[in-house]
């Protein structure tokens, strides 16, 4: 295995584009090293992006949007007061990935690129409207988070493409987001169902909403009908019931060692309700 420490993303991209065997990028390593140990993947080229300037930075730009480096660890995100105040749902999703030790290394971009349908950070990122910058042989492009995963372990990234950063839009007034997941224990499990809700309110009325489910389909599911149930409402019981029904209806889960189809479908509705309430309270409490 060749181990590379490029100094720029362009260099990282070129190494990957020119490689002939199995290539993996290394940020936190909390997926790649596990897969190497389990003989699921043995990279011929391992490209460590942590020597590239800016990968550990969290910056709030002038327009209040957030720019997060590719190697910022979960522990650094959850410790960032400004980011937590603006996007608690995104951060709490990332903060649920693994143990305290895993949080010391795991990254948003790694969680996204691993392509697990149950990834905890991805529903919140998609609900927030996050985007990533992709550097590739044909140059750079900006991609919405929900357009990256295509199925378990698969993304739309082409050979030689590497994600160089992740961006959250400005929170704006009256906004609030939340992420909940169901796991059988209290920690250390992969989400059986995940649900992120991002809202904006004017007074008590919801004016914008996005509801995204995880772990109930081959990729995250952006549930338009669930958003429609919320928009224009004051999160009354009728809206919540329609929301829950829409969330359950949008599930295309499987039976596996973590949950059954029936279970995931039921709990998606339950979590949608609960996450919506938390997001709503945060939105109304926001200045």
């Amino acid at each position, binding site marked *: 295995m060749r181990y590379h420490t490029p100094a720029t993303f362009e260099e990282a991209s070129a190494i990957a584009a020119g490689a002939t065997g199995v290539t993996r990028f290394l940020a936190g390593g909390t997926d790649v090293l596990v897969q190497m140990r389990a003989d699921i993947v043995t990279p011929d080229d391992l490209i460590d992006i942590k020597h590239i300037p800016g990968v550990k930075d969290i910056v709030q730009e002038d327009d209040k949007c957030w720019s997060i480096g590719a190697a910022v660890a979960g522990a650094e995100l959850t410790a960032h007061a400004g980011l937590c105040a603006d996007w608690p749902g995104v951060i709490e999703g990332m903060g649920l990935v693994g143990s305290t030790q895993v949080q010391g290394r795991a990254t948003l971009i790694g969680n996204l690129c691993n392509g697990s349908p149950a990834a905890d950070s991805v529903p919140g990122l998609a609900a927030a409207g996050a985007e990533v910058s992709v550097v590739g042989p044909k140059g750079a492009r900006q991609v919405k988070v929900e357009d990256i995963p295509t199925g378990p372990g698969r993304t739309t990234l082409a050979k030689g493409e590497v994600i160089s950063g992740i961006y959250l839009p400005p929170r704006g007034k009256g906004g609030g987001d939340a992420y909940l997941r169901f796991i*059988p*224990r209290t*920690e250390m*499990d992969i989400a*059986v169902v995940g649900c992120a809700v991002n809202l904006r309110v004017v007074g008590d009325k919801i004016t914008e909403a996005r509801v995204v489910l995880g772990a109930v389909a081959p990729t995250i599911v952006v549930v338009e009908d669930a958003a429609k149930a919320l928009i224009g409402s004051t999160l009354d019981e009728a809206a919540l019931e329609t929301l829950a029904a829409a969330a359950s209806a949008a599930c295309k889960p499987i039976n596996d*060692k973590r949950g059954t189809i029936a*279970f995931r479908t039921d*709990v998606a509705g339950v979590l949608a309700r609960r996450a919506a309430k938390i997001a709503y309270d945060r939105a109304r409490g926001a200045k």
Partner: protein
Amino acid sequence: MPLDSKTTGFKYIGTRPDRPDGIDKVTGKARYGADAYAPGMLHGVMIRSPHAHAKIKRIDASKALALKGVKAVVTRADFPTGLEGEDWNIQENCMAGEVALYDGHAVAAVAATSLLLAREAAKLIEVEYEVLPHVTDVDEAMKPGAPAIRAGAADYSVPEGLHPNVMRYIEYGHGDLEAGFAAADLVMENTYKTEATHQGYIEPHACLAQLGSDGKGEMWVCTQGHWFIRRMSAAVLGIDVANLRVTPSEIGGGFGGKTTVFIEPVALALSRKAGKPVKMVMTRSEVLRATGPTSSSSIDVKMGMKKDGTMTAAKVTMRMQGGAFPMAPIDSALDCAFSCYNIPAVHHEGYDVLANRPKQAAYRAPGSPMAAFATESLVDEMCRALGLDPLKTRLKNASREGTKASFGPTFPRIGLVETLEAALAHPHYAAPLGPNKGRGVASGYWMNWGGETSVSAALGEDGSMTVSVGTPDIGGSRASMALMAAEALGIPYENVRVNIADTGSLGVNEPTHGSRATYATGLATIEAVKQISTKLCQRAADKWGIPAEAVIWEDGCAKPSGLNAGEFPPLTIGELAAEMGGTGGPISGHFEATPSGHGGSFGTHIVDVEVDPETGHTSVLRYTVVQDAGKAIHPAYVEGQFQGGAAQGIGWALNEEYIYGADGRLQNTVFLDYRIPVASDLPMIDTVIVEVPNPGHPYGVRGVGETGITPPLPAVANAVHGAAGVRLRSLPMSPPRILAAIKAKG
């Protein structure tokens, strides 16, 4: 010879000193199985079957052997033939012969100069399989048409007409069952099932093995019992036991799973072939796939009860699979099933069944948790139906001294009643419960064990004592042995050093299993050091010119037994030791026996849970363990056994299970999906140590390590019933199952 016993007035017993190996273990200095290194050592890696059941047609290691740095490959052909009985079972399990019997079954092994190279070489070993039909479920394995895993291997006990996968059949009981059920006001009958679970020790199996072409070898290994490892390895390899010296490392958990061999004979075989030491360490997925989880079970239980709670009759049928080999623990499971109760008529029936799963090994009170799940759940269901208090009903029927046990013998002095009374009186039992919360209680039993024991003690020149024992220190036992030695000699605890000796240094010792170490090694320690005090009394007598009978040992000194013996100031152990070379020679004591005075331990647990009615998620809110320790030598380590057993039982009840796919392969091979309790899953676990001394031990000790895992399975199920109004009879009670039950109830 009667054992002097004392149950009160202790100076050291019952205190909580620092364990002697504490500093080593908190500084990282202690050396466990994988912490040994030898110059020139090779690394061994196992090649394992990816099929649940397959004929092994051909193994071609030529590509692996062609790699520079690869020094040896072994297959079954490198092991002797002609073994029989359990020796053959062990050999077959360590290295497959003609057939791979489960997903993960070892079929070959390779040794190379680095671990990375050995792993690469393992991938190059070509194994050609002919896949056979498989069966993993115990009930399916008994049905006509199920694949026969080893035809003709059933023993004489099995009645005609049963499937060849049934290896053993047990039936026993006493009393008039029909009359008993007829006398009942309520007869209830249900089927309960438990899935296989793993002991879950955090340290994977590891050894550093060296075997010469002359059949002489040494091995460093993490094990609960190095004499067992020696005997089994020697049998599998065809060498004499005395030619293999096994040294136990510190052990990172065992719970029964490290009382047998898996990789050890293979590492020795690789070493012999390569001419170098070989280190072999299992990965976690190898541990889960291919060591010894406990059996899964399917249990039918029926009980008759009068309106006032009196039990009139009970009947149980248990089906257990122990993997592709016999000896699933149906014997002890059946013995424990009704052991808590004095029931006039009982009947037991058990089937030991083969399945394409790894060979089961002991897991903390083998069989008893499954049996308790069935009986204690049924008792709870019956108490609910009759409107009776579950603890008072248990107390009403509780086994006591003189009760004819369900498994035959008459109980000597036992402490079940005391645990039930303590539980009834405990504030936990009376604490109020809110919505979605429920409380469950259950009792459990483990008979414990004596076993072959050899201990040697040697007096140091300064009066300090070295005690060499043969049971590895898996949970603080060095402290307990030192306390018992200190008590017996009347010398400070700090002056006793306990060593775990290797197989070349002591007579045979059984493992630290069966909750026997504090009892049997402890008893032998007391006797061994008393031999020393007896000899010291003789030396004092010689010095004083009085008969030995006129000298007593007290508070670490030899003293004249009374004024008539003479007025001599006491001689301390240190003073006598300083002269011993010239007064008769070095002084040692030893004791060997297979003691049979072990006393069983009963326990009663109380648990509160909260169940989220919308998701089926269960939280354990409060847990209390009440258990009889006989005499708690070091109470903190007794409490630790209570708490550890409860935690494992909670995991077994709620989330732990072996999940096999339709292809017969294990699906959850890492801790991510083999879900043991984490720190945030559990509350503090309160403990109450009941002490009903065991007359068979000088200080009243009863083993405590195992009983603690038996009540949690039913106690949690009973609590879930209280919290959510649903009765689950199949473990684990994972959220999807609880939610499905809640929805079905409507």
